[in-house]
């Protein structure tokens, strides 16, 4: 895929012409008027590299094993750093593969913790999700101070979560003290006649001191402000990025016999921007 300039200036201009009004009824919303912003790319991984190689160790670290209590959610998978679970495909994508072996599952979870974190800005990834009951892919952020203050005090921003039994719905959420676990501040985005595993989609947040906006394919479907959370707003500090495919767990339920395996999350890129004046 493309060559990357280390700093690219990207400009997103949300100019929807009034003609959009004519597509009434069937479109999700009539009109989105968003303030113009200038975004400057500060960090990205385009996942260029040889097929079968692990993701760039200068950018990503692994979470390995089964975590405590299935990573806090009774998830079934064991995370590995085996190329069969996580590797570049040679076509500019990172592939995280969840596999079944009888009643046990392996998968992968990678994070930028220790390598990169940022407060505010635009975080986006272009990807295709896995599918099937019990699959739980996610693109999310955790507060950099998790090791000192713990979860949920560190805060969590879920840019994209999906339940494999509903491959047409993604969810965007924030967790913090008093609104975590099964009780986040959350909203979902549904494809009317499509699936997130069938084609690539871009999932993004735009985050500043006042709000976190959630986007699918540049469509703003949720805005969360400090007034919307029933507890402390813990989103004024750097967060790091996580990509993973979980199997089973409280959020998604168990995989069933008919759940197809292996299942792949294919990530074209992850990009992080800062707003410039």
């Amino acid at each position: 895929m493309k060559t990357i300039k280390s700093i690219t200036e990207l400009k997103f201009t949300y100019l929807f012409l009034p003609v959009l009004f004519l597509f009434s009824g069937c479109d999700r919303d009539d009109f989105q008027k968003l303030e113009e912003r200038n975004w400057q790319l500060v960090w990205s991984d385009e996942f260029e590299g040889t097929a079968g190689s692990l993701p760039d160790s200068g950018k990503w670290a692994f979470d390995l094993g089964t975590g405590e209590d299935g990573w806090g959610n009774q998830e079934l998978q064991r995370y590995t750093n085996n190329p069969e679970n996580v590797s570049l495909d040679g076509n500019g994508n990172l592939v995280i593969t969840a596999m079944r072996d009888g009643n046990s599952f392996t998968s992968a979870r990678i994070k930028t913790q220790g390598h990169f974190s940022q407060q505010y800005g635009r975080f986006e990834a272009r990807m295709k999700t896995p599918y099937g009951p019990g699959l739980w892919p996610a693109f999310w952020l955790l507060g950099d101070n998790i090791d000192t203050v713990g979860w949920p005090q560190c805060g969590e921003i879920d840019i994209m979560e999906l339940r494999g039994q509903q491959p047409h719905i993604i969810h965007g959420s924030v967790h913090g003290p008093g609104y975590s676990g099964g009780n986040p501040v959350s909203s979902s985005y549904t494809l009317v006649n499509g699936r997130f595993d069938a084609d690539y989609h871009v999932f993004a947040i735009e985050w500043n001191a006042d709000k976190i906006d959630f986007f699918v394919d540049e469509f703003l479907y949720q805005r969360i402000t400090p007034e919307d959370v029933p507890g402390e707003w813990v989103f004024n500090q750097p967060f790091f990025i996580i990509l993973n495919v979980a199997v089973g767990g409280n959020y998604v339920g168990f995989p069933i016999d008919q759940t197809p395996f292996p299942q792949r999350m294919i990530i074209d890129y992850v990009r992080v921007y800062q707003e410039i004046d």
Partner: protein
Amino acid sequence: MKTYKYIRISQLLAASIIFAFFLGCERDITDLEEASYPTNPEVFINGFSPGLNYAAFGGSVPTAFDVDNQVTYSDQSTASMRFEVPDAGDPRGSFAGGVFYTDGGRDLSGYNALTFWAKATQSTTIGEVGFGNDLGENRFVVSIQGLNVTTGWKKYIIPIPDPSRLKAERGLFWYAAGNIDGKGFTFWIDEVKYEKLGTIAHPQFAIQNGENQEETSFIGASTAVGGLTSKFNMPSGIYQPINIAPAYFEFTSSDTSIATVDETGKVNVTGGPGSAEITAKVGDTDANGSLTIQSLGEFDLPPVPIHDPENVISIFSDHYENVPVDYYNGYWEPWQTTQSADFVVNGDHILHYFDFNFVGIEFSSPTVDATEMTHMHIDIFLPNQLNANAQFQIELVNFAEPDNITGVNTTHISVDQSQQWISLDIPLDEFTGLTNKSNLAQIIFVDGGDNIPSFFANNIYFYKDDNGEPPPPEDEPETPAPTPTHPADKVLAIFSDAYQAVPANFFADWGQSTIVSIVQIDGVNTLKYENLNYQGIELESSQDISDMEYLHVDFWTANSSELNVFLISPGPVEQSYSLTVPTTGWSSIDIPLSMFEPVDMNDVFQLMFTGNGDIFIDNIYFHKN
């Protein structure tokens, strides 16, 4: 589902108005390639869509289907389709089933699924629901088998495997439903239409059930690509198996000089030695699995059996009438690995067992009383190179109470006997332990040395031989042809010890493969044609036989299935006459010469015999009364 009772429902709706209601959120399909057939996606919305007819399947209850104006899937729907599945024993028919079709076709290539809403009076299973049944070829028939429905309305989706195939489809919807545990039920279907859905994805197709399989074969053999499967991932993330017709698959052979494959998946082996891999696609999607044909090249059939049918009880042979056989491979679980891939070479059926460990043939209804029989015959062929001498074990099972009686015989096969036919004639008293053979019901083959990966079998039968040995082939008449009785002055002889014959060359070399000899049978010269294809007789000078009335020939053959005699005059002008073969003893025939028109009877200079097998001929002469 071959015969249909024809019911025409003349219920036309102002479909254009309805369509306008739905147009709002439907994908605009008018931009698609211009089609010669209507692209109307609707089958049954609030009634029959334009051009739609209904025909009930033969044997079904003809009135099972009706339009229901009370029960519909939503407030907006004013009619649904109601189907009443009969109880067991209903005199009107044993099931509910029929086809909704159009006289002209529809272009459905812009859609990727048939959708409908359904519910039933109870949670139950509808036997089969689909489309592509056009009351004709059913080329592109698709169905879901065992559609589970509940008492609440639910939307169902049947994907189209390759929409580009459905440019003129007449079969828009069909169903077949039988009772459950003897009890009928009622179900409703509503809002039947074709859609372009983004919520179904990741189709998977397979041949050979998704496995890469190999088959050893020969020139002239044919086989078929099997294990055609299809599944689509549904909006729930779960795969739904779909039955699809072979015509959706596009088969390819990697080397058509070795094997060709037609659009139905039939494979013909055309060359070899060599290999050809058969693969398939559906639309743009590669099917999983493959069938690799390993052609060994030319294939010889085993020797034709020689035993008198009167003394044979045949289990598997094209040369005898076989007794009823339950199966030639019982797929006995759980230990049997043996698979079957039987094939046909030049019309001769061959059993082919592979992944061989053991396999059983059963003929239990009725069982075989082999008390009078002395031997078992079988021809086997081991197509793989043997890595060591093999033990081919045959077990005969005599059904009995309380325990079956099994006799075992083992044939040792040396390494150099592979890849050729081996004819076994095993005395039944060499099946150790077979104390009773009055109730034989199974033949079991066992790979005794565990080194025979596969084998072919043919001509499996029991026979009676009083000498304990196979009888010598009856390849020669025991007595000469009967001595002719026609007066010599009314005869013009070509070949006969009884008359003065005109000079002739009986060994004419016309490039034939026939081996000619003149043999003596009890001192009588007799013409012998071995392995006949054709054979001429050249008269030293041409003969005027216009005053003669008949051609007489005596002939004898045990193995020929075709024999013709020709008269030939210059030109050549020739005409044949077919003789009935094989014979029982000597056959004598007097053929009116009028049968040989338009041969010039003033000027006959050659005779010829054509056909096959081994023939003895005597007393070839013309005569008149």
